[in-house]
């Protein structure tokens, strides 16, 4: 077995067919499914800064128009939720988080953008993501976060893991720019929210 990629709807198992047969892997999987083991999914809680400002969030106004909300209400609704990290995928360290409030649910854009900047916060259907790298994207961009999601060169693991919880703290453009500067100097290292503090 070379790769195991869990997603919302399936588990992709890449294996060497000359080393093990598909039947054998399916038998293994069936055995594991028959006796599920409770995983430790308590996770950590992160509070990540996000700048929801139309100058760096090209779809914010369109999302407001299509949902019948004001821009302030979109920001308020999106940042009021504690999201659950379901899976990582697409780009290194990219976390699929949900669920987006029903009022903000929109299908993917009809025409994907060829390029969006790193850190873009986007929504599509019930899911929200921070895109960690410049990439093509068919989602609606409603903000940008300065937080580096994975410094692969340092040997560290990705910031977010399945089972984690995430809330977004709105920041101004000015604060965002300061945080980007801190991040570029390697000084922006989020720490999980203290569970005691969160409870208080």
């Amino acid at each position: 077995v070379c790769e195991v990629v869990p997603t919302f709807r399936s588990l992709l198992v890449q294996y060497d067919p000359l080393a093990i047969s598909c039947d054998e892997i399916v038998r293994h999987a069936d055995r594991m499914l028959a006796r599920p083991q409770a995983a430790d999914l308590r996770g950590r809680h992160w509070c990540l800064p996000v700048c929801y400002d139309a100058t760096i969030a090209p779809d914010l106004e369109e999302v407001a128009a299509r949902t019948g909300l004001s821009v302030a209400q979109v920001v308020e609704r999106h940042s009021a939720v504690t999201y659950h990290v379901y899976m990582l995928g697409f780009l290194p360290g990219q976390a699929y988080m949900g669920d987006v409030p029903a009022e903000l649910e929109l299908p993917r854009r009809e025409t994907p953008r060829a390029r969006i900047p790193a850190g873009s916060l986007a929504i599509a259907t019930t899911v929200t993501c921070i895109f960690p790298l410049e990439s093509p994207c068919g989602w609606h961009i409603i903000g940008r976060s300065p937080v580096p999601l994975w410094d692969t060169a340092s040997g560290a693991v990705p910031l977010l893991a399945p089972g984690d919880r995430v809330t977004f703290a709105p920041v101004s453009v000015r604060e965002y720019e300061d945080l980007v500067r801190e991040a570029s100097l390697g000084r922006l290292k989020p720490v999980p929210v203290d569970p005691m503090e969160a409870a208080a």
Partner: protein
Amino acid sequence: MRPALRIAAPGLLTTVQDLGRAGYQHLGVPSSGALDAVSLQAANALVGNPPNTGALEIAYLGPTLVADADSVRVAVAGAAAVIDILPDEFATVGRRLSGMRSVCLRRGEALRIGAVTGGTVLYVAVEGGFDIVPVLGSVSTYLRGGIGGWQGRALAAGDALPLRLERAAEREEMRLDGFSLKRPARIRVVIGPQHDYFSEGEIAAFFESEYAVGPSADRMGMRLTGRAIRHARGFDLTSDGIAPGSIQIPGNGQPIVLLVDRQTTGGYPKIATVISADLAALGQYPIGAKVAFEAVSVAAAQAALRQHRAGVAALPEMVVPLAGARGDVGARLGRCNLISGFVDAAA
């Protein structure tokens, strides 16, 4: 001074690649690695390296590489290009070199590689390999993510890639006997996993049509142009994992074959998957090349992989002294029952 291979001119897209980064797709990190893993291993075999040693992958237009070491042995394998050994990096005229062989550069000499033709990539392996720290278990460059290789990026003029060996070993130069790139008539695929998103008629059309490799093809994906394939029931799928060689059909119906730098998950229906044995050959299809697909069973795909592996394992046996007589390649090929990607040049 530390022995190095210095980049006098970078070419258009020269990156360090090995056989890829395994085990990180669940975190969103693609495998990356050589587009044509067979040619990479051929180049490594020519200089006596293990198959997974990182080498330079060269696309479009090649670089000029200078020996900043007492001597360095290099080997070139893959698509064709005009290759010259220059007495120094400023010289314009040198001696012409054929591909698929090793050669020793003395200090200050330069290897100049021209435009890549007849394929997409060629590989320059150095004896002993580059002294580069692997990232997540591999020296492959993932350009979009800035991960691995040389500072996570394509090589630039002035880069000096450190070498593991101070000087080339004392031995004769080698060539590959009986190795050449062959474009199969059809790329073989296994149907699915989401063929149920297409009608039987559309699936038949996919196999009857000839596609052209589109101009935006890159290491992430090969966008094809040709007969659009219509979806029977929408194209907005909940994201799931993507296998190497997966053929997505996005909204516009034009297939995209996902390659080494592919995103790890995606939400377009996948009509078919290129078999492992044909991935290296597909990696050499240049922009504009025609490609057609043929469906095979899983058992046939596995049999093809077995043959392909035997062919790759036999690469060291195809390495013969440059000056020596032609070996009994025909017999070796017959024994290995080689197909796709290998032809007997003597035949």
